[in-house]
């Protein structure tokens, strides 16, 4: 599990790599929060291109980052979520609270 952070203009992008579960969510949270609190960006992009799996711990992770960003009037955008991750997000009702930016279609081969 790793997080790459990119700051451009007033947007912070966190590119997360690896599976997101209760165990890995902790590290992701720490990495993102220490950067976000320093920088206070207007937008936080969470890039899920390299996230092959996420359970509901990922929902808690997103919700927590949303609460943090709202402290200074910022917003959260989810990028490049796969179909299973999107399903989880719809189940949680989070789609009302965050924006989703589509990337390329993920291919499923079965």
């Amino acid at each position, binding site marked *: 599990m790793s997080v790459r952070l990119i700051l451009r203009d007033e947007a912070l992008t966190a590119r997360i790599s690896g599976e997101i579960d209760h165990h890995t*969510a902790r590290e992701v949270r720490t990495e993102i929060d220490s950067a976000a609190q320093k920088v206070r960006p207007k937008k936080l992009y969470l890039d899920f291109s390299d996230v092959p799996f996420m359970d509901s711990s990922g929902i808690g992770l997103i919700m927590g980052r949303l609460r943090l960003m709202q402290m200074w009037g910022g917003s959260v955008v989810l990028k490049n979520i796969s179909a299973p991750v999107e399903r*989880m997000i719809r189940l949680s009702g989070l789609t009302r609270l965050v924006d989703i930016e589509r990337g390329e279609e993920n291919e499923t081969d079965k």
Partner: protein
Amino acid sequence: MKPINEMSVSFISVSANESFARAVVSAFVAQLDPTIDELTDLKTAVSEAVTNCIVHGYRDTLGTVYINAKIYENGKVMVRIRDKGVGIGNIEQAMEPMFTTAGGERAGLGFAVMQSFCDRVTVRSKEGKGTTVTLQKNILRRQYGIQNG
């Protein structure tokens, strides 16, 4: 109906074992040639159940998580995840979406996910004794029989 295959694993309730639990159930179920979606569904449900054992069952302690999986001829898979932790006082309440006793960044969606991604979920629990969650997932059989090695 008797299962045609069965496995049991147990491990210490540390969060690092959440991915191990997913992997071991996925590996076992692979013999049914599930689709990616079926596998993801089951993996996710297992992940939720195991996380509950770790976060709630054994909240401030360490204990053992027991997983037993059975495969049936018609593609039915039963995965039983058990802990000997604190148990659930009010199961109905615990299963309500967004209800959590853990605070922090727990979304309270574990049971909702399990129920959405599996065909059947049953929960048995006794306070002070532990909790058993049984997940049933029907893998659509797309080929006949199992090769005997």
